[in-house]
């Protein structure tokens, strides 16, 4: 158990800059989920924390100690890989005992520790098997077991669930959360799945092209996204964006409609903005924007309606119950659910 502090981590592979200065402070026992699109540098960041990759500049502190230049062996962290990376020629027991043996723990203690971890994960019956004799889910558990027997300062997970089928993924997700709570080990968890991110993380780091676009709790990221990228990445279906211009403290949509905001932003008239609203916050009613329906996806309790505005902008709405209308649909944009972004920078404006 330890804190983790990343200071201005930059990483270059040859001439490509992959990380552009990432800062992060992780409290003891906290579960941080790093989420972002493929290729944004999540794994690279994790590997820099593990010591498998060295940052071009910046500092990594684990438990208050500067470990920037240390080898993985000296960092006392454990990692669960996407492909599990079990030692194929060793039994499950040997896989779990490997790190303990290196630490010269007495065989009796090793057996006790492995048995404990195996019991925690429900893999006692598999200890004599080799990895190839295990199912994907069982391998996943063994990889977890190998990480927890070491009682490391830090758990690192690199998309550990992405090779599992949907049902098992949900189950393991809950299990990882439960284990992490129970053991209280500081953890970094990389995923590109936003549901996984929202459900697992105490806080999320949303990465975008080598930057940490936002670091906050899941709810905060959902309700107050820092920019249009985060807004569109978190939440499903993605947030709708409508271009507009400031006009007397309100927003004049390019469509013509004028919308008042709960708080008046300090922006000059004529400033270009982007207005965001989540599909679930649009509600049918007269006097709003008009959507030409293209596709209805009935999900039972709700219906997802896809369509276009008169100017061709795509719009998605989540409407309660069954929708039977065809043709144009008028939708209201409740002001308390509006998100305002600067059109030029994409950054959130105001509260």
């Amino acid at each position: 158990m330890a804190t983790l502090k990343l200071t201005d981590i930059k990483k270059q592979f040859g001439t490509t800059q992959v990380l552009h200065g990432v800062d992060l402070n992780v409290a003891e026992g906290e579960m941080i989920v790093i989420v972002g699109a493929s290729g944004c540098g999540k794994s690279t960041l994790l590997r820099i924390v593990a010591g498998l990759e060295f940052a071009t500049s910046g500092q990594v502190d684990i438990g208050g100690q500067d470990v920037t230049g240390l080898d993985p062996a000296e960092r006392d962290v454990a990692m669960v890989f996407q492909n599990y990376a079990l030692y194929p020629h060793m039994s499950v027991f040997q896989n779990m005992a490997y790190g303990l043996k290196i630490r010269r723990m007495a065989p009796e203690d090793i057996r006790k520790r492995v048995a404990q971890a195996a019991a925690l994960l429900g893999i006692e019956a598999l200890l004599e098997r080799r990895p190839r004799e295990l199912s994907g889910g069982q391998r996943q558990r063994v990889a977890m077991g190998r990480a927890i027997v070491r009682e490391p300062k830090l758990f690192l997970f690199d998309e550990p669930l992405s090779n599992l089928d949907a049902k098992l993924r949900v189950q393991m997700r809950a299990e990882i959360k439960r284990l992490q709570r129970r053991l209280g080990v500081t953890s970094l968890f990389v995923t590109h799945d936003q549901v996984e991110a929202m459900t697992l993380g105490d806080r999320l780091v949303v990465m975008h092209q080598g930057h940490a676009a936002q670091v906050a709790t899941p709810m905060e990221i959902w309700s107050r996204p820092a920019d249009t990228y985060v807004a569109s990445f978190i939440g499903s279906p993605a947030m709708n964006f409508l271009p507009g211009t400031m006009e007397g403290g309100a927003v004049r949509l390019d469509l013509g409609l004028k919308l008042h905001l709960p708080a008046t932003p300090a922006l000059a008239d004529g400033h270009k903005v982007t207005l965001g609203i989540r599909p679930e916050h649009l509600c049918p009613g007269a006097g709003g924007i008009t959507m030409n329906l293209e596709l209805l996806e009935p999900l039972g309790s709700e219906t997802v309606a896809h369509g276009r505005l008169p100017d061709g902008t795509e719009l998605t709405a989540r409407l309660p119950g069954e929708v039977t209308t065809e043709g144009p649909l008028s939708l209201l944009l409740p002001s308390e659910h509006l998100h305002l972004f600067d059109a030029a920078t994409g950054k959130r404006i105001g509260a």
Partner: protein
Amino acid sequence: MSRPAPASHLFRGTALPWLLLLPQLVITALFFFWPAGQAVWQSLLREDAFGLRSEFVGLENFADVLADPTWLAAFGRTLLFSGSVASLALVSALFLAVQADRNIRGASVFKTLLIWPYAVAPAVAAVLWLFMFHPNIGIFGRMLNAAGIAWDYKLNGDQAMLLVIVASAWKQVSYNFIFFLAGLQSIPKSVLEAAAIDGASPRYRFWTVVFPLLSPTAFFLLVVNLVYAFFDTFGVIHALTQGGPGKATETLIYRVYTDGVVNLNLGSSAAQSVILMVLVVGLTFMQFRYVERRVHY
């Protein structure tokens, strides 16, 4: 009613399959079974000194060979020679493969350079080594002598043995290297990273993860190298030392040649080659058994 014939009835009768197999069967028969059969038959005969008549002597040739102290000495020498060639070729190939794997960017240059020896004919390879280590005209031979070491593999049996071992091993390194490199590259990088995170030093990682994962490859190569040292080193020995000085580098395969072609003792020579044949079949058999049993991932 006619329906298309199922695949198994594609070839009516058995004539066509046999016809298609015929070229391969003819080649195998002509170049393997016939000479092998001849050798077995010869090994049961004894010719008179002029090669005019031969009589059937049963297993007498074998009894004579196995009781001959010089043959037994050659057998011991062959074990030493083959063991040394195989271990030298394996260890140096493994070392080179690990270096190439570590720095995969330079590996293609590395690979090309290392594959060359394999393409060189045994006799040419031997001449190459001869030019390097000849006591009078070889660069290294002269350097050794200049340094005060009495180097002359034409007089010193141990030096001769050393030279044929090194030259034979050198030719086999490239083959082993390719297999080891392929083996190393098939080990997932994440497994080694997991070991590093588990706290293993590079050396400990090599012995506890890399080496065990390479062991099936290593065993396969061991058998191939032993077979090579037993049978395919005739050219190297013939060009470098002709089995001498004395009998210092006379291995079993070389002795088959001396007894059969030089001394014209066909019966004994044939018996010896049958024994060699049994040895290689044994080695191959062991290999299959081992590979079946040990491939555990």
